[in-house]
């Protein structure tokens, strides 16, 4: 049994705001949510900027006893999930709960809880820690919390594949619904790695920019971290139509590959195979692809490799396709990145607005693509791809179509 899979709900927390509307208004305005870090002391950091979800305070959404059990990574996921479920109008009775999967991506899990408590035991020499450290920091906490709140009793797990985590998760959820194993899925990703230890670890790689994220610009000088969550409600087309749901887009294909190359340097072959798989899985021709939400980290290497891969896979269509990296605005949310970018892709399909690549200063002849510099563009997009290429050479590409009714 193969069924069509549609998106009926979206929820977001990002540096651009809390909620789909604030996030996508930011994307449409080309607003950059990356700024000086204010959430913790940056004195000993070399890199002092990030895409913090500054307007998000757990205290605005949860009681103190709830927060005792919720790392920021779970707080993001719960708020985004609530919005997505409310928007879709879906209600989970026991039967549907048993036929709904909960599959999220997260690379670092409850990193802030770990960071804080390692500090307590190694620096402050405390001999006891709060009893809820483990239920807060475990990578599956966001998924478990969502399943508990909404009564979702089908397959539930977290996928952890660094920067591809969310795309892998959405792909798994897509497979669950397409195959008929499940009727619905809550999917996406969440990440809250902005803390001193998290920043220090990334600084160590020497791939971060100290001033801005400028994907595909000749002047690009590295990535900028972000944080947040995006959650999608997926349903089989039949299920969505039977309850009269508004359909926001269709997920039609998914491709995933491993480079089997290097732990940090990408190959061209692995990403290219993933993009081709997504196209063929979605029965799409390259000529149908109007938009690609790029992985676009703004490192010298990623953007050059990704541009080359897009040209190889799309052939002549690479001259027409719009390619943008929204990491330029919300930062690189690592395990949550693909989900935030799926939202930008759905916005392009459903609202006909292609998010720009902010921070563009100068064309790079090595890129040679229409990267939608700095200003959003109105266009009817019939089909789109969203790329994620992770450290460790793990590639995951989602193919989506506009829902024409």
């Amino acid at each position, binding site marked *: 049994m193969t069924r069509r899979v549609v998106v009926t709900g979206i929820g977001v927390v990002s540096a651009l705001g809390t909620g789909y509307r604030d996030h996508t208004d930011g994307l449409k305005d080309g607003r950059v949510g990356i700024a000086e870090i204010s959430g913790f002391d940056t004195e000993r950091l070399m890199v002092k900027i990030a895409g913090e979800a500054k307007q998000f305070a757990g205290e605005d959404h949860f009681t103190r*006893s709830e927060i*005792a*059990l919720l790392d920021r990574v779970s707080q993001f996921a719960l708020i985004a999930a609530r919005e997505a479920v409310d928007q879709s109008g879906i209600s989970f009775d026991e039967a549907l709960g048993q036929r709904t999967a909960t599959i999220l991506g997260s690379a670092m899990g409850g990193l802030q809880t770990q960071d804080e408590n390692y500090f307590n035991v190694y620096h402050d020499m405390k001999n*006891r820690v*709060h*009893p*809820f450290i483990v239920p807060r920091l475990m990578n599956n906490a966001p998924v478990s919390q969502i399943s508990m709140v909404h009564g979702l009793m089908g397959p539930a797990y977290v996928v952890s594949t660094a920067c591809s985590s969310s795309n892998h998760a959405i792909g798994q959820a897509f497979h669950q619904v397409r195959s008929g194993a499940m009727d619905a899925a809550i999917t996406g990703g969440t990440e809250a790695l902005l803390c001193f230890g998290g920043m220090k670890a990334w600084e160590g790689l020497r791939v971060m920019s100290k001033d801005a994220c400028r994907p595909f610009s000749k002047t690009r000088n590295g990535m900028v971290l972000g944080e947040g969550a995006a959650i999608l409600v997926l349903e089989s087309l039949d299920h969505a139509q039977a309850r009269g749901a508004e359909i926001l887009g269709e997920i039609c294909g998914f491709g995933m590959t491993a480079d089997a190359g290097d732990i940090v340097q990408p190959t061209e072959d692995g990403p290219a195979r993933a993009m081709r798989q997504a196209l063929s899985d979605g029965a799409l021709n390259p000529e149908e692809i109007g938009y690609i939400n790029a992985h676009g980290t703004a490192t010298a290497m990623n953007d050059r490799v990704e541009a080359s891969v897009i040209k190889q896979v799309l052939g002549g269509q690479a001259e027409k396709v719009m390619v943008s990296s929204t990491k330029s605005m919300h930062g690189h949310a690592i395990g949550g990145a693909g989900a935030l970018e799926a939202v930008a892709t759905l916005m392009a399909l459903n609202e006909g607005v292609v998010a720009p690549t902010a921070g563009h200063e100068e064309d790079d002849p090595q890129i040679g693509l229409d990267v939608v510099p700095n200003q959003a563009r109105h266009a009817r997009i019939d089909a789109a791809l969203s790329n994620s290429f992770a450290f460790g050479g793990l590639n995951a590409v989602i193919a989506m179509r506009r829902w024409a009714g």
Partner: protein
Amino acid sequence: MTEDVAKRVAAIIAEQALVEPETITATTTVEDLGLDSLALVEVVFGIEEAFDVSVPYNANDPAESDFKLGNFGEIVEGVKQLIAEKS
């Protein structure tokens, strides 16, 4: 001192049970307060932090623990004993 221990323990328990500390008496049990297993572990943690003691409480098998979390009076007695053993 004695009164102080009882007051501080009552405050710790009250915070977890979301009740006023004055409503807790010597015969109030953890069941009366609706404290679940996670809340009890938080109470134990709160006591350890407040009095700088180590509470021999095993959440796997509370009944077999050396520290009794029965009613409030027992808890306070247990805490006092731990403080005495420490000094």
